[in-house]
């Protein structure tokens, strides 16, 4: 039974592409045995139609929490404090559970981190895909055709349908996960660390497939990862998160070519580029703050080599530097001076 609740806006080509998703000032907290932890504290970013956005940050920065909030299925002990998630013009946080469920997979799909555990071990790939297609009202022969087409899209042969999850290799599983995510022609695909569990060569192949599909089908994709080189390889724009907040966002070329926030600069140093050999790997020392406490000032200040007194006093707001480029740093105007310093290992030694 096909339930259409949200009418799809017509795709508009050109520079001024409509905003598919707008997250505004999202705050999410967790109940933990040691108290409340604010995993997401005022996150805002946009995703345009057919845009590939990389949401990058180290583990614990809140990116997965944001991703799960988008799908509407959050961890049992987490809850949304405030904010908006505006999808195709409607704030889905105001939706009833039924409306939210209708949205799932048909409009917003999800590619999990480790597809091994995300597929039911006792059913074949075919049965699980049929189950998903049934939600879109596709059954029988049309379903069979569509499954083969989907697998073909991700570069898999129809024989895969007869297999059980444990019979697939890591790369195959991720491709199956991608194929399943595309089953109902969603507008947005949220991919949570889709290639982290794979080895480098397979990573590249899966990313190529994903990028190719994204372009062909004009999908919006949010790629969540801690590896900035993945983002560099295939994303149109980047959102950098730290300790539950956005510290920098904007088009990839800008953010990677002219990183303005010190954390972004540090990240660029920490990972080898997929296409070029790394000159030097410089890890950022220290660790993120404890999110149970109310934090004062810039959260990155304790680890920042360029921090000044003001940083510890007051948290910098996310300001728009140039069109589409946002940064939260008091010293954003000095970025061109700080950038070359940031590439030196000595700067980061404490």
């Amino acid at each position, binding site marked *: 039974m096909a339930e259409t609740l949200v009418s799809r806006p017509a795709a508009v080509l050109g520079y001024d592409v409509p905003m598919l998703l707008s997250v505004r000032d999202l705050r999410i907290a967790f109940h933990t045995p040691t108290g409340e932890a604010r995993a997401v504290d005022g996150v805002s970013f946009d995703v345009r139609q057919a845009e590939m956005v990389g949401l990058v940050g180290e583990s614990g920065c809140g990116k997965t929490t944001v991703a799960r909030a988008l*799908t*509407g*299925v959050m961890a049992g002990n987490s809850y949304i404090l405030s904010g908006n998630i505006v999808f195709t013009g409607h704030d889905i946080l105001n939706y009833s559970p039924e409306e939210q*469920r*209708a*949205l*799932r*997979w*048909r409009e917003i799909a*999800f590619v*999990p981190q*480790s597809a091994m*555990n*995300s*597929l*039911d*071990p*006792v059913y074949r790939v075919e049965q699980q895909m049929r*189950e*998903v297609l049934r*939600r879109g009202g596709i059954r029988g022969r049309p379903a069979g055709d569509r499954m083969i087409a989907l697998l073909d899209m991700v570069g898999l042969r129809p024989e895969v349908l007869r297999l*059980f999850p*444990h*019979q697939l290799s890591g790369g195959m599983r991720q491709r199956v996960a991608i194929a*399943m995510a595309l089953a109902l022609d969603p507008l947005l695909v949220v991919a949570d660390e889709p290639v982290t569990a794979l080895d480098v060569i397979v990573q590249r192949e899966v990313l190529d497939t994903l990028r190719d599909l994204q372009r062909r089908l004009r999908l919006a994709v949010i790629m969540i990862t801690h590896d900035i080189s993945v983002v560099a390889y295939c994303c149109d724009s980047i959102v950098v998160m730290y300790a539950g907040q956005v510290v920098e966002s904007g088009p990839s070329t800008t953010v990677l070519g002219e990183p303005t926030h010190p954390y972004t600069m540090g990240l660029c140093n920490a990972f080898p580029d997929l296409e070029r050999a790394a000159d030097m790997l410089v890890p950022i020392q220290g660790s993120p703050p404890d999110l149970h406490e109310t934090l004062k000032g810039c959260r990155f200040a304790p680890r920042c080599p360029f921090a000044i007194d003001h940083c510890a006093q007051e948290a910098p707001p996310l300001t728009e530097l140039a069109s589409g480029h946002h940064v939260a740093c008091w010293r954003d105007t000095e970025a061109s001076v700080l950038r070359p310093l940031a590439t030196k290992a000595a700067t980061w030694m404490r």
Partner: protein
Amino acid sequence: MTGRALLHRLGQMLFVLWVVTTLLFFLFRLMPGSPLAAYIDTSMTPEQQAILMHQFGLDRPLHEQYVLYLVNLLHGSLGYSFIYKEPVGSLLLAALPNTLLLTLSSLLIAYAFGILAGAFLAARRGTWIEAVSLPFVLASRALPEFWLGMVLLAIFSFAFGWFPAGGATSPGASFPNAWARFTSVDFLHHLVLPALTLAIFLQGLPLLLMRSNMLEVMQEEFVVMSRIKGLSEWTIIIRHAARNALLPVATALALGIGSSIGGNVVVESVFSWPGLGRRLVEAVSASDYPLAQGAFLMIATAQVVMNCVADLVYATLDPRVGQR
């Protein structure tokens, strides 16, 4: 399971059974008292006794008797009962269906109830229903089955008169054939109390197992993923969670059949149910060791076979195990 693994399993099974048979054989032969004590009339003369001993092969050396026993066993002969003076095999075969029917019907009830109740309790985690039910369920596993049988008998048979007090059929009842007998109202009427007793005792295991499996499975990633896919709650719980949670329960069922056949001994005694267990008790009390041996062997075989079946069942239901 591959043919090779199956063969290996069968070999293991046969080995265990052989060890059991041998142990049994020597155990009974070494028991104090003359083996024919039950059989021999005190009025018999020593010559008559000697003839009997010879007939039963008891005057031969022990190892010869053992070999003879094994040979007979392979030919399907379990010897002659001292008390009943009939072939052990036919006596046991008459008792076997009674035990099987009792076991199977009680397990069916126990597992059907246990699975549903277990899933229900898993869904009611943290509520007062759970807090109240769990102690009872645990206590049900602490019940001596024969005592439960006694209480049920006293209440429903003697006090209320709703059910007969024992046996599998009313005395004097006759039936054209075995099928008619087992499907008769009389038989079923007699079956109710013993089956219920066993079922109450047995349901604790599938219930607790199902409950803990469901709780675990609901935390699994693929269940969370099903929710993200927007599948209905019904689909998630039945098609995914329950299906996965049932695997160990199905195995437990197969194992349960095996261990129940032997464990029914006491219930069969309370209700005078004419099954294998009762035969065993009778035989051991009367030192009728061919019968005792035969009954024990049959029970042990059933258990070992069902253990093997349990592994097969698990291998079939869990595709991860089946392909090796």
